[in-house]
């Protein structure tokens, strides 16, 4: 049974169809691995054992009747930011510690309809604010490659779980890098789609103009399989784009010869760890061997992406998190004396420190007298960054570079100063500001720690990204490496 956990999603799908094993067997095996790993990794907040077994049994019936599709019966984890009907949904926060979602997010219901089997909800930075999964009310997640190190964040639980082969896929969200950065630090594949590609209905909102749901799995092929079921227009999300979803699997095997790859001058700077750089450049050589051409491009405004983000995202968060007031759902303080006391203590007690920091930053930059200087200015800089990318994509088809400046770091190493933590997202944030799709795939190791290669594309170029990622994964096996103890 241990061999099963090492199979890719595509391999599991083939095995289910060939009746080598059943979905119930997969679910049971996964639940055992989850239970065994939980004390070490703390990757999950909730395990949905009964739901999983019921969904798996239903999937087995579908498969036996000759129905179902590539995803039927495949185990799946959901980041605890996705509303899952009847199941606790906490967003990693005390504020929602007892919240039972009364509905499914569109992503959840689409993957359920596709026959995927929900094993549980993964741990995450509180309200998706963080780059190390250290701000969760439920304790930090640990990196399966080294438990003294962070898995990255905010989707640390999803990335750690997939890296440890607890499930072949885990949904995740990315607002400033929260899919790609943990994927890079955990040695797995994570894709953030174009803004508007995946419905945000039922995704607990952090920053509405930046949030995007995506998937973390072990390969581009697996990502293609899940993304094609997740993506697509949803009338319930007013920012959802009405544009057909290509079959991401169909274009996967195309040759990448002639693909024009841009290397951002600004990303290969002194902030990038020398070893990370060496591995990324070696990966680019592999792709050159497949016929891609490399060209240096420059995005002059990109160095302002982190400051712009840390105005826009907290501003939007301060607005989105205003709903947590102890009235209709979520945490409420004890014995509120009046309405103001209810609000102040509910929010003061229900939110953690980083969330409060961001709410206050956001409140400040939106307040009278400061709105123009900060928020409006940041929105203008955002436009500059988006225009820079647009210009670059006139010269190249994709932009490649490092996902993170360093490999995984120690728990507690960057919590003293918020800015140090914020700079972990220096290469990922630009794609969120411009709404662009981006993927991170493993490209090597610094010692025993994985390093990620990031591929960014123009709007709705997910097919192109997955094709390039798959081409690299056909030539290399970094994505097949498993942390010691999880093989």
């Amino acid at each position: 049974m241990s061999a099963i956990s090492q199979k890719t999603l595509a391999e599991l799908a083939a095995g289910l169809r060939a009746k080598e094993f059943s979905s119930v067997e997969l679910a049971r095996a996964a639940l055992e691995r989850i239970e065994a790993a939980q004390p070490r990794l703390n990757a999950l907040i909730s395990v949905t054992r009964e739901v999983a077994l019921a969904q798996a049994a239903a999937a087995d019936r579908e498969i036996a009747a000759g129905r179902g599709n590539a995803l039927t019966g495949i185990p799946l984890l959901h980041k605890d930011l996705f509303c899952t009907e009847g199941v606790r949904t906490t967003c990693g926060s005390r504020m929602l510690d007892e919240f039972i979602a009364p509905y499914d997010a569109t992503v959840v219901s689409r993957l359920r309809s596709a026959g995927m089997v929900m094993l549980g909800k993964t741990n995450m930075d509180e309200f998706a604010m963080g780059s190390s999964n250290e701000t969760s009310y439920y304790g930090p997640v640990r990196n399966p490659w080294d438990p003294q190190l962070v898995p990255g964040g905010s989707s640390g639980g999803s990335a750690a779980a997939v890296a440890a082969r607890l499930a072949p896929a885990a949904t995740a969200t990315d607002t400033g890098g929260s899919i790609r950065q943990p994927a890079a630090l955990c040695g797995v594949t994570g894709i953030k789609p174009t803004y508007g590609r995946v419905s945000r209905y039922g995704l607990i909102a952090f920053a509405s103009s930046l949030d995007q749901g995506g998937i973390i799995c072990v390969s581009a092929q697996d990502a293609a399989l899940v993304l094609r079921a997740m993506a697509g227009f949803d009338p319930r999300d007013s920012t959802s784009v009405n544009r057909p979803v290509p079959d991401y699997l169909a274009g996967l095997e195309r040759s990448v010869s002639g693909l024009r790859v841009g290397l951002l001058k600004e990303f290969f700077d002194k902030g990038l760890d020398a070893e990370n750089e060496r591995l990324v450049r070696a990966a680019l050589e592999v792709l050159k061997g497949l016929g891609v051409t490399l060209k240096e491009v420059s995005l002059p405004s990109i160095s302002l992406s982190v400051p712009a983000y840390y105005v826009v995202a907290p501003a939007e968060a301060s607005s989105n998190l205003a709903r947590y007031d102890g009235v209709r759902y979520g945490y409420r303080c004890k014995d509120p004396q009046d309405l103001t006391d209810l609000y102040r203590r509910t929010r003061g007690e229900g939110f953690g420190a980083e969330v409060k920091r961001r709410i206050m930053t956001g409140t400040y930059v939106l307040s009278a007298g400061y709105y123009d200087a900060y928020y409006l200015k940041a929105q203008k800089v955002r436009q500059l960054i988006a225009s820079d990318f647009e210009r670059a994509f006139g010269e190249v088809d994709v932009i490649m570079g490092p996902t993170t400046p360093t490999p995984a770091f120690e728990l507690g190493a960057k919590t003293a100063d918020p800015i140090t933590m914020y700079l972990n997202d220096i290469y990922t944030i630009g794609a969120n500001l411009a709404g662009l799709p981006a993927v991170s795939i493993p490209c090597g190791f610094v010692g025993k720690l994985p390093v990620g290669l990031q591929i960014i594309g123009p709007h709705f170029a997910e097919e192109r990204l997955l094709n390039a990622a798959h081409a690299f994964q056909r030539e290399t096996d970094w994505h097949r490496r498993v942390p010691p103890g999880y093989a």
Partner: protein
Amino acid sequence: MKRAEIETIAHLARLELRESEIAAYQSSLTSILEFVGELNRADTAGVTPMAHPLPGLSQMLRSDEVTERDQRDRYQLNAPRAEAGLYLVPKVIE
């Protein structure tokens, strides 16, 4: 950031801060605002502010027809205190 400014922001955000937290927030907010002050380096004359990353999208509209059903009781299962379909809060009007 001065203490009074932190208190004003906390009031606007309806966040109660413990005495022990105020100095920490003063310090971290000061450094965050200093960091984002970098934005002033940028020449943004004539640049349209970007509120939404996909240009050309406008608010979707639909016809004014009822498509949802009343599920109040279900949604109120999560309420800290509810009674007869109402959410209970401390007295608002004195």
